[in-house]
């Protein structure tokens, strides 16, 4: 059975991937965290050097001998563990006689003033005291986070489970299911473990950076070229420039531990710093582990890629046993492919993304997307405008049943008129195919309070002039009338088709039994029309919940929020206030309400209709 072997080989490769890919992702993420540590500390060293080294008299840069003293001092700082070096222009001071900076690197440092990877560490520009020119560089070597061996064990478990999966390829369906479930569970645990390792390494790197920065800041005041009794905070801030750390005065320290604090802007890591006998500062930064969401997803996703691979191999082995069927399946998916791919990318993906968004704080400018749990939903529920818009939407929806009654009436009149029906259908359908904005505009013109056609016609009957769209009491009603005008023809067309589908024998039978037109309508037509009625109602209500264009063009949700509907609220929240998470929560709430409303409609009208 050679083909079986090929499928097993594929499964084995996928299984190996499930073990190694998450580990590789974890390694990569750990290396990134360690680089981030080097970079932050290098910036702090550059700031420290600039703060404590006297400037050379008469020219940019530092007094060379003093610079050497500062650099040497770095290595004797208490608790200092980082490999470090300071470059005066391109010459290393501590690794005396070591290679100078390559000229390309130096040019980049001067021009871009951004960090450069050099050797096993990170190089950042060192500027003069006025922070004007790049006069050298600070280099900090990479330190390894403590290695966490736990993924090895989960990886072994996954490997075993994968072996089971490979073994089950080509065997019974039940067996494949069991092994695949085991495999998937193991892979998830493995992915989760790798993600935990990433978070651990990130937390270690972040804390290490905070400790080093604390050491530098604690040491700086004693070495300042001009000794002062109380160093201003702004001066010390030079040390944390580029490190992502902010300094603040603190009242008293709660120990010397680095704490995790939950703030309104998200989690923060806070390190207390003792400056003197009575003076404490606090150094605050976003903890690195809070930024590893992407890597967590990557580790879990990569673990599951292997699972999918083994599953496909198992399924392929079965399909390969009957090549004709395999061909059919491949053909079918080739036909489905374009639509399926698009649906995954632009519909199913966005659905999941919307759910994710609703649990996060997201605006276009702030790169940190903070997890806020159900707070977006709570905010929506506490927002009176959201409730106003919900009430308006529900009121607006009432136009659907009203239009349906009208449409059914028109359909009943039209159903027996042959040529006249076609003409009427054309006339009634026109508003539905007309441009929405154009329709909105002509109605706004006709409803205008001073010169409008509608007020003139109504005035002829004795109704006083009304500012239809400008009065909070009538604005929503006016929009509803316009919607009825637009939808009437569409609904009529469906009802006419539905009426024509009712077999004539039922009407005849009722007539023979002596039923008059009224009774025939209630006892025969309406019950038999129920599926059509349900369809019109459900689709109409779904459409009415999503009304937007009329509101946007005619009233902007006003006057006094009288026409503020849900979709308009979502639009404003997202694209005017840029609160995409909040808007997503509102949209999901709308979805749930709509599901409920639809369900109620099916319960009320959805009974199966028996013909006879």
């Amino acid at each position, binding site marked *: 059975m050679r083909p079986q072997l090929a499928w097993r080989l594929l499964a084995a490769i996928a299984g190996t991937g499930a073990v190694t890919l998450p580990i590789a992702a974890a390694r990569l993420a750990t290396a990134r965290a360690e680089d981030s540590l080097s970079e932050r500390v290098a910036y702090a060293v550059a700031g420290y050097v600039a703060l404590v080294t006297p400037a050379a008299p008469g020219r940019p840069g530092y007094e060379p001998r003093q610079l050497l003293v500062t650099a040497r001092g770095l290595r004797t700082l208490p608790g200092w563990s980082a490999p470090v070096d300071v470059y005066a222009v391109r010459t290393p001071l501590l690794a005396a006689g070591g290679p100078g900076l390559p000229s390309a690197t130096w040019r980049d440092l001067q021009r871009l003033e951004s960090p450069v990877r050099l050797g096993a560490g990170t190089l950042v520009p060192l500027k003069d005291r006025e922070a004007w020119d790049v006069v050298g560089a600070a280099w900090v070597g990479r330190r390894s986070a403590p290695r966490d061996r736990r993924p090895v064990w989960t990886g072994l478990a996954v490997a075993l489970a994968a072996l089971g999966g490979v073994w089950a390829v080509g065997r019974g369906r039940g067996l494949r299911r069991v092994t695949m479930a085991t495999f998937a569970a193991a892979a998830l645990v493995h992915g989760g473990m790798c993600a935990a390792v990433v978070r651990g390494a990130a937390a270690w790197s972040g804390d290490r950076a905070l400790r080093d920065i604390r050491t530098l800041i604690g040491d700086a005041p004693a070495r300042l070229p001009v000794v002062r009794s109380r160093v201003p905070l702004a001066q010390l801030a030079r040390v944390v420039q580029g490190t992502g750390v902010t300094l603040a005065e603190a009242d008293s320290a709660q120990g010397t531990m680095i704490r995790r604090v939950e703030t309104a802007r998200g989690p923060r890591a806070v390190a207390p710093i003792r400056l003197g006998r009575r003076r404490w500062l606090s150094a605050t930064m976003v903890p690195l582990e809070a930024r590893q969401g992407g890597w967590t997803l990557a580790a879990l996703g990569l673990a599951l890629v292997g699972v999918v691979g083994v599953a496909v191999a198992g399924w392929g082995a079965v399909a390969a046993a009957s090549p004709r069927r395999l061909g*059919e399946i491949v*053909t*079918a998916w080739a*036909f*489905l*492919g*374009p*639509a*399926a791919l698009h649906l995954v*990318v632009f*519909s199913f*993906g*966005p*659905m999941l*993304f*919307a759910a994710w*968004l609703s649990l996060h704080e997201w605006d276009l400018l702030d790169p940190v997307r903070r997890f806020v749990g159900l707070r977006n939903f709570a905010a929506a529920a506490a927002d009176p405008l959201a409730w106003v818009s919900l009430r308006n939407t529900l009121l607006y929806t009432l136009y659907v049943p009203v239009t349906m009654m009208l449409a059914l*009436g028109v359909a009943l*009149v039209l159903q027996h008129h042959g040529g006249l029906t076609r003409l009427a*259908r*054309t*006339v*009634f*359908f*026109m*508003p539905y*195919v*007309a*441009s*929405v*904005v*154009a*329709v909105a*505009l*002509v109605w706004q*013109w*006709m409803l205008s309070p001073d*010169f409008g056609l509608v007020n*003139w016609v109504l005035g002829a009957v004795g109704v006083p002039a009304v500012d239809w769209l400008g009065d909070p009491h009538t604005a929503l009603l006016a929009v509803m009338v316009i919607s009825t*005008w637009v939808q*009437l023809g569409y609904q009529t067309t*469906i009802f006419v*088709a539905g009426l024509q*589908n009712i077999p004539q024998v039922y009407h005849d039978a009722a007539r023979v039994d002596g039923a008059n037109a009224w009774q025939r309508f209630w006892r025969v037509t309406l019950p038999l029309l129920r*599926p059509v009625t349900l*369809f019109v109602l459900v689709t109409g209500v779904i459409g009415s919940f*999503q009304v937007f*264009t009329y509101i*946007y063009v005619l009233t902007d949700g006003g006057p006094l929020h009288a026409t503020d509907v*849900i979709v308009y609220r979502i*639009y404003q929240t997202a*694209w005017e206030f840029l609160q*995409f998470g909040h*808007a*997503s929560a509102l*949209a*999901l709430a709308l*979805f749930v309400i*709509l599901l409920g409303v*639809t369900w109620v409609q099916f319960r009320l009208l959805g009974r199966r209709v028996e013909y006879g």
Partner: protein
Amino acid sequence: MADRLLRWMGRVLVGLLGLSMVAPFLYMLSTSLMDEFEVLRFPPALWPGHPRPGNYQAALTALPFARFFLNSLVFAGSVAVAQVATSATAAYALARLRFPGRERVFFTVLTVMMVPTIVLLIPRFLLVNALGWVDSYAGLISTEVVSVWGIFLLRQFFQTLPRDLEDAARLDGAGEWTVFRRIILPLTRPALATLFVFAFVDQWKNFLWPLIVTRSLDMQVMELGIASFHGVYYTNWPYQMAAAVAGVLPLLLLFLVAQRAFVRGIQLSGLR
């Protein structure tokens, strides 16, 4: 006797309703030809004293309406073509080809219909934004390329077709693609036309997505153009109505030409 009276009353009412359907269009047309001050009269003038076709030229060149029109045409046209293509192939697989999980796939696809557009709009916008497609044709078109309604409609239609012809072709050794191209597509031309006109009209009328995903004047579609024109010439009703006529006319013409396709589409979707 009462029956006849009722019937006559019904006809009169329907006649009046029909009149109210046409009246706004006629009034749109007549206002578009009026003098700027003729509209500021009460009782309102129903027909211009001296029709001014020049309004159209003035209004339609005040903003680049030719460009808007082209954009609408490209947007609605390419979406309609793409929807017909993707719906036809997908519906063919779902109606005719056998593969494991076919019904499940079909129902999964249908669930998309239950989700309100606005739920998808936000993530789709962020996706398009991340791809750098905001304010481009790619951004406008990419999200609308597949219509679940279209897949559903064509699948229903394919299922009503007799299988004999296809089976004969398959016996002659034709592959599925040949069967699809040579037999199924010609037989479904009316349904394809229906899907095309509905998709075209839907996208031409689409307001929210273009509003979100376009920024520059050059990328605006007709609907947006008329709306922004409304913002600029707020009080000049003749100009606004001229722009409105320009927005309404293409769709009305399409409707008059392809009326049967529209009606068939409604009947197909409304009555299963």
